[in-house]
């Protein structure tokens, strides 16, 4: 039997398939649902200091089965009300990673502290939302600010800190390095790719916000390039994100250097049952490839041609 357990930053996960932030992550019941469906870890919706309604609809646009565009605008119930949601998931046994976003290092640190107090196993810093002004990617595209945020959060919490990196940059690994230098325990990459849709009949953007972020299979090649390049520049573990919908996608990310992965848009395309299917398919596929643990594959693509 293939052993799917994986350890990231000292925390052990029953499998490397995590629920990505923003999907099934606003309510505790849904986090529990994703856990019950087989996810190895569940990342919460990115939580801020105050409740945020997000942008008006339309907030999403889909492209067949290969992509999705969204500009939710970081709706979230706010950190004050969120502990009760996490409690629902934690008391069901879920391994919960708490995602937070803020406008500066102080806000990130304060939020991370309150999030850590809920009993999450790690903090994920959303440094990469492409469509929320002044939040996320404006900070995440500047290595100095990344360093400041990560350092402040590291001072505020004892649990591992994961920096989630944007792909919308000419030098993505530099951002990961900045996070590593400031003490980040892991990197997750990528968030969505800045994108847009225009309605031809109505002559206006489809999304109420105008631009948004592209996710789904279309961005898998983008996420792989980021993970591959980050792996060549940092030593801390990487969590691969972007377009994963099959066991082979997961293996591609492992080979590129990811130790775990997150699944987002595929949940919309297939339902939460995707975690069960991916887990089964991954076991079968790894067994067929003669691999006993996912760890064997992490970064193996960099070591030149392995046996087929």
């Amino acid at each position: 039997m293939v052993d799917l357990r994986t350890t990231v930053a000292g925390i052990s996960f029953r499998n490397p398939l995590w629920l990505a932030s923003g999907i099934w992550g606003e309510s505790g019941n849904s986090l529990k649902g994703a856990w019950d469906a087989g996810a190895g870890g569940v990342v919460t919706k990115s939580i801020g200091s105050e409740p945020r309604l997000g942008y008006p609809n339309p907030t999403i646009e889909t492209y067949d089965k290969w992509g999705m565009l969204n500009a939710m605008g970081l709706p979230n119930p706010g950190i004050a009300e969120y502990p009760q949601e996490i409690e629902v998931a934690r008391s069901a046994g879920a391994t919960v990673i708490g995602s937070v976003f803020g406008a500066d290092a102080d806000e990130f640190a304060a939020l991370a502290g309150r999030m850590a107090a809920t009993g999450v196993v790690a903090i994920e810093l959303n440094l990469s939302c492409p469509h929320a002004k002044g939040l996320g990617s404006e900070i995440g595209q500047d290595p100095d600010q990344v360093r400041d945020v990560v350092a402040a959060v590291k001072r505020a919490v004892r649990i591992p800190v994961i920096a989630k990196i944007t792909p919308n940059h000419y030098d993505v690994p530099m951002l990961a390095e900045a996070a590593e230098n400031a003490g980040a325990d892991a990197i997750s990459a990528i968030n969505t790719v800045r994108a847009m849709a225009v309605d031809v009949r109505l002559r206006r953007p489809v999304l109420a916000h105008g631009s948004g972020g592209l996710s789904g299979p279309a961005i898998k090649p983008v996420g792989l390039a980021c993970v591959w390049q980050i792996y060549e520049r940092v030593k801390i573990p990487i969590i691969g994100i972007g377009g994963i919908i099959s066991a082979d996608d997961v293996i591609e990310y492992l080979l590129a250097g990811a130790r775990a992965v997150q699944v987002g848009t595929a949940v919309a395309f297939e339902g939460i049952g995707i975690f069960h299917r991916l887990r089964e398919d991954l076991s079968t596929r790894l067994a067929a490839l003669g691999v006993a643990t996912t760890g064997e594959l992490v970064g193996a693509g960099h070591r030149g041609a392995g046996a087929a």
Partner: protein
Amino acid sequence: MRTITEVSERIVETPSTVTLRFRYAPSALPGQFVMIWLPGDDELPMSLSYTGESKGVTIKAMGATTRAALSIPAGAPVGIRGPYGNHFDLTPKRILLVGGGSGTAVLAPAAEAAARSGGSVVSALGATTAAELLFLDRARGFSETVEVATDDGSRGHHGFVTDVSQRLLSEREFDAVWTCGPEVMMRKVIAAAEPRHVPVFCSMERQMKCALGMCDACALGPYHVCTDGPVFPAPQLAALPEFGRTKRDSSGRKVPL
């Protein structure tokens, strides 16, 4: 993946409710909903009140967007995606329909389908006042009997539609109850049907954004109304502390209904 279509017809149903008809090819089952984009405004979930090739939604003014929707003229472009969600099971033959306010919108096409395939429908329709009774004529078409209740007594029973449905449940045999309306109303319908072992199916409403079972906006206990619903069998709902009590606002916070 939205289809822009023109409103082919606009029917004023009540002072606060209009039906917009439009061509939209994808096939739909009674109970399903669409996301309707009112360009420049918002995109809202709306049950299909007509599920044939010429589809329709029946919109009640609730807030800013639905109020604006009331003045959308025929010919105006709207964006449609869907249909989404599950639908009413049409196998039961003797059906009690309990519609509160605009809730009748989603029940009508289901009842019509049931009647067409040999079922018998008894309808109990409620509204604040006579003028707000939705689809009264349409209900006469698909029902054996139509009974009415108004809060102000301007027509039919003076009081709640649940008084009427409770009486009907005690007088007649039903294979199923289909209901849509305020959750307190649906709670009462379930309470009345339970001792008689008549299964109840409720069409639920929650905030919606993606309608794809992803964003969690429509979370209702362990369910997503957009993909697990909107039609829920009563036992699923009865177990939920939030049913009839709280919903989530756009931020995901629990707020009173």
